[in-house]
């Protein structure tokens, strides 16, 4: 596909090198953070209404976390290069991605260990009743222990709290770091702002919470257990979604506003990009259709007393819209920054190929993979019915 070039672009930035895979990477990292926040609010801050989905959102966060590095490795082309970055990082400068690798590793361990503690007691019970492969899996995951004492479970609760408390800053750091990777690129005026990590972090929470709402309702719908959905839980999720969305949206708009008012260096170029090649993806989709409309729907859902069915229906609708909004936001950041030529005048074009190595088909498969992983994880970690409910 030949790129359509507008005005003057230097020959070496005719072709955006960070493709759809990088968009996906930022998107998936964000989903993890948001889902984790839901569980942390229950485990650490004791939100009673979120308790029914605390375990579910933790496992959901993990199933997204597993695929975060997949688009990066596909984009890298030569996967054996990845460990070198982590083993021999250059602290004097260019190893920004090594930093992400460490935070990702720490975060993976935090979530994994927290899941193990959350399910420890049940896994000990399941181990006794199951046989075959399942028995072996539970044996490995409980590290060969069989403790059923009350004291042991009290320790679990404390450790879960500790991991949750550790996880919140780590989660913010994880996605803030993704924002920093872009915000630190001085050469791209559309990225170079200290607000980038903050905007990324808040929009991550938005996409993750929206992801929790959609998967929660969809799983209940397909397993024909809609009656199990707790209205209070859903209401809390929607209020949370609105809160985080307000911060994410207004921080982004404020940033744009400050640039526009103070006419910062190269604002003319950013303005031309937003009014030209990014007109549809930024103003029409991200702002008008997928931000302003959901803002009012969420306001209505949060502030008014809404019937249960309407809450579920509009909850899913608005969550899907916000999932798309965040995807558009990531696209506009990653691709938008690259279609602006370093000449400060021209623009190039990017659209992914359908069947390319980094194309749309691969992206679709990566987005579907967490659902399959979640289904597999549900075989080992039951999300809903707590067999120990009575004892708690």
């Amino acid at each position, binding site marked *: 596909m030949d790129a359509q070039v507008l005005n003057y672009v230097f020959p070496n930035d005719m072709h955006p090198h960070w493709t759809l895979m990088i968009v996906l990477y930022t998107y998936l990292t964000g989903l993890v953070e948001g889902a984790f926040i839901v569980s942390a609010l229950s485990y650490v801050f004791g939100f009673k209404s979120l308790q029914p989905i605390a375990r579910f959102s933790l496992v959901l966060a993990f199933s997204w976390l597993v695929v975060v590095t997949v688009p990066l490795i596909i984009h890298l082309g030569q996967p054996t290069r990845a*460990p070198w970055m982590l083993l*021999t990082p250059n602290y004097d400068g260019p190893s920004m991605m090594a930093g992400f690798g460490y935070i990702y590793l720490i975060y993976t361990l935090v979530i994994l*260990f927290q899941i193990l503690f959350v399910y420890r007691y049940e896994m000990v019970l399941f181990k006794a009743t199951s046989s075959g492969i399942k028995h072996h899996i539970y044996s490995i995951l409980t*590290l*060969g*222990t069989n403790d059923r004492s009350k*004291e*042991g479970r009290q*320790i679990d609760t404390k450790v879960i709290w500790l991991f949750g408390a550790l996880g919140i800053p780590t989660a913010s750091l994880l996605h803030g770091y993704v924002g920093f990777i872009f915000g630190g690129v001085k050469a791209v005026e559309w990225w170079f702002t200290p607000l980038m990590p903050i905007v990324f972090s808040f929009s991550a929470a938005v996409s993750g919470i929206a992801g929790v709402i959609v998967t929660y309702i969809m799983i209940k719908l397909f397993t024909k257990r809609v009656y199990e959905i707790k209205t209070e839980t859903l209401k809390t999720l929607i209020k949370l979604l609105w809160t985080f969305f307000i911060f994410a949206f207004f921080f982004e708009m404020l940033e744009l506003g400050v640039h526009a008012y103070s006419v910062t260096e190269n604002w003319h170029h950013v303005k031309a990009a937003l009014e030209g090649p990014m007109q549809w993806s930024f103003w029409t989709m991200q702002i008008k259709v997928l931000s302003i409309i959901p803002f009012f729907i969420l306001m209505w859902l949060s502030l008014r007393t809404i019937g249960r069915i309407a809450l579920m229906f509009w909850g899913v609708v608005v969550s899907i819209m916000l999932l798309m909004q965040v995807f558009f936001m990531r696209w506009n950041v990653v691709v938008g920054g690259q279609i602006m030529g370093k000449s400060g005048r021209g623009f190039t074009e990017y659209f992914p190929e359908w069947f390319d190595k980094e194309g749309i088909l691969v992206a679709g498969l990566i987005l579907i993979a967490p659902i399959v992983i979640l289904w597999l994880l549900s075989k080992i970690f039951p999300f809903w019915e707590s067999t120990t409910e009575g004892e708690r």
Partner: protein
Amino acid sequence: MNSPYSFSTRLFLLFIAILLLIYFARIFSLPESWGDYGYYRGDYIDEEASKAMVYGGNDTCQSCHEEVYTIKKEGAHKKLSCELCHGPVGEHVEGKRYIGELSVERGTKQTKMCLRCHQEVTGRPETFPMVDAKQHLEDEKVDASNACGSCHTVHEPLETMRYVKRLRTLREGLDDDDE
């Protein structure tokens, strides 16, 4: 096995094991000379230095081809490296090739070579000599089948031009005298 602390203890030990694994992975996978001078393999410098020479620079060419060098050093192409057109001298002295591939064949292939720099492109400074090959041949009223080398000597492209100009001036001078 049934102590309330058993799981936490084992998980902690597992965590330590993971850290040790990373630590040893780094130790075992790092090349011996890593970090001797900086963030790279120290042996790399010797390896690179001991590679056979490929490009020799103009001085190397001059040592044998003094006559062409004398023509080139006065002309418009004086700043160019010989090997830019002729290919690496390393291959030349080893006898693999008599000369670099690019300008072996005169004619269209040579023209292509010239146009790499002299093709009319908006991005180049206006003072740089650029032509649209076809248009240039038409403008100069010569046959379209001509290659660049037909008129321009490549080592000093303006040599013939200067000569022709001088002849024309003489001719005009003679014509003026006749009148």
